[in-house]
């Protein structure tokens, strides 16, 4: 028994050495940024978008060092990871998953001299701000692209869980598609989870069986849906990270990605200057947090022009959710003269006219 104990303690000691080693090596940086991700940064999706942005910040700002932790669960474990980063000198922390909010807030309370920027939440305090990209309106030009490219007039949209934000994305997509192609219909399939790959493949196949020739998605990683579409000769529109285009060399149309780098740079600078002020920042297309991916080779110039034009319109403040907007059962949901803004974006419980599906 004691032999085993000895072996285990050697292992533990080794692990400790490995864990401590990286912090010893660097020369003293001006700011250490800590980032925690709920998944892997190689997901071609949500986590990748944050990793890419923070790497850019660390590269462009002299004296900034980045500590990253992947696969951090949305539990008390997250608190331990963040505490560890603070012990290593981190003074700015990016908890990037929605569920990291409360653990991060707890840590923030214990460390008033460390600043936090949480993605997608609402909690705030003197050293705890939040931000997110406004994706809904940005889906409108995606719909324009899909509506122009489709030959069957059938678009497919795979979503994980029918939360208001995802429903809003679908609605803007269909509104954009109908603006250039009145016959375009969007069919929604819900998988029931943000990351059930086999079901995403089955959902994509079901849509393709129905003759959909463009697939879009709102799940954690767009990889499976895009690759399923690609393997069956259909086109795809990506979401979360614009790098997803590498997965579909033939059928890629375009996609939406988050670009956090400009905002993160400002935040990092403010922490270094001692002027950090917690805010709730929500920016969309043209404002720095959401961007449109490069077009695929198959997209003709006139379509590119239309998409870019509608993206410009959105960036200049055009709100696609301006009444009258009728849902797909014929009920007027947004009366003429009204429009839905940022605070209402989580509230969609209905699909617009032209969407096949029902919010369950």
């Amino acid at each position, binding site marked *: 028994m004691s032999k085993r104990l000895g072996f285990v303690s050697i292992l533990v000691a080794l692990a400790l050495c490995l864990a401590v080693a990286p912090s010893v090596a660097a020369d003293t940086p001006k700011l250490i940024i800590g980032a925690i991700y709920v*998944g892997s940064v190689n997901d071609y999706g949500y986590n990748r978008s944050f990793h890419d942005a923070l790497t850019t910040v660390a590269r462009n700002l002299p004296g900034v060092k980045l500590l990253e932790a992947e696969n951090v669960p949305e539990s008390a474990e997250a608190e331990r990871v963040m505490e560890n980063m603070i012990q290593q000198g981190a003074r700015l922390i990016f908890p990037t998953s929605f569920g990291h909010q409360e653990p991060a807030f707890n840590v923030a309370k214990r460390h008033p001299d460390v600043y936090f920027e949480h993605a997608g939440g609402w909690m705030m305090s003197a050293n705890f701000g939040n931000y997110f990209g406004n994706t809904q309106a940005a889906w409108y030009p995606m719909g324009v692209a899909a509506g122009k490219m489709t030959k069957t007039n059938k678009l497919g949209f795979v979503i994980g869980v029918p939360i208001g934000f995802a429903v809003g994305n679908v609605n803007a997509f269909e509104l954009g598609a109908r603006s250039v192609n009145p016959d375009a219909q969007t069919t929604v399939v819900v998988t029931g989870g943000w990351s*059930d790959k086999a079901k995403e*493949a089955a959902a994509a*196949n*079901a*849509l393709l069986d129905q003759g959909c020739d463009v697939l879009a998605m709102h799940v954690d990683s767009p*990889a499976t849906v895009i690759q399923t579409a690609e393997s069956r000769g259909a086109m795809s529109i990506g979401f979360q990270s614009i790098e997803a285009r590498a997965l579909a060399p033939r059928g890629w149309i375009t996609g939406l990605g988050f670009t956090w780098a400009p905002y993160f740079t400002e935040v990092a600078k403010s922490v270094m200057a001692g002027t950090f002020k917690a805010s709730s920042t929500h920016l969309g297309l043209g404002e720095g947090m959401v961007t449109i991916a490069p077009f695929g080779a198959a997209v003709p110039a006139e379509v590119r022009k239309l998409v870019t034009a509608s993206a410009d319109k959105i960036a200049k403040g055009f709100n696609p959710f301006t009444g009258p907007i009728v849902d797909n059962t014929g009920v007027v949901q947004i009366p003429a003269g009204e429009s839905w803004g940022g605070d209402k974006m989580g509230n969609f419980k209905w699909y617009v006219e032209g969407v096949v599906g029902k919010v369950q």
Partner: protein
Amino acid sequence: MSTPLVLGVLAGAILSGASLLYATLGETIVERSGIVNLGLEGILLIGASVGFAIAAFTRSAYLGVVAAALAGGLANLLFGWLVVSRRANQLASGLAMMFFGIGVSALVGGPFVGAVITGLPKWRPSFLAGLPWVRSTTLFNYDILIWLALPVAFLVWWALFKTRWGLGLRAVGESPAAAFAAGRNPSALRFQGLFAGGVLGGLAGAHLSLSLTLTWAEGMTAGRGFIAIALVIFSKWHPLRAVVGALVFGGAEALQLQLQARGADVSPFLLDMIPYVLTLLVLLAWGGARRLAAPAALGRTFYGSD
């Protein structure tokens, strides 16, 4: 063109049922030898991640399949060491194996998340490709694992019910003491059964990552290992009934997605329950039948003659 519902469901049932069938066949062999492996979910994950890692590393999906099968077999041998050699409790060891599988697969698959692989090549007989209803679905456009699923089911049936080895394995599952008295080696037979079952579990995982989704993500089996354990009961420990079971379970998943894709107004959450309601019905209907009962020694530790 849009496909008739029944074809869409059938196509979907075959695609997602193939991996369920391999997992169910594997667990059937294992349970026929009197061992419950609740760690099947972990075996599937190990198969999926090892298969994906090797396929990404060597750029050969077939090597990935072979590696996944071996990894699954080895994982089950480890389980066998616990429950056969060390006579540990099967349920506790099985759950431990599941968590072990989750951890190992995350470790192995970690560096390969986001890798782009060429999946298993698909092949469709040319005389079928001309039919429009075939072309508009995934029907008959299958990789080697799907084409082999049915033959493997027959092979397992033949091995279990038509060979001397299968007779011995089943005897051990009913009464290890009697089999031992008749000159069979219960431990050896159980290890053989576990290895075969692990190989099939590894193939089930490989099909998910190397053909269906072309990705590796932590926990990507999403409970399919447990569905397969339910399927073993659903099919009453019979490999050929497992084919029907896998199609029904795969079909239930396909049905709810296909219905959504048609805009049918049914709750996907309600439809998700169908397989489990069916399992309960099967248990209610045939649960007490002597001929269809579980192997008598299932889950019991055999302490041998000492």
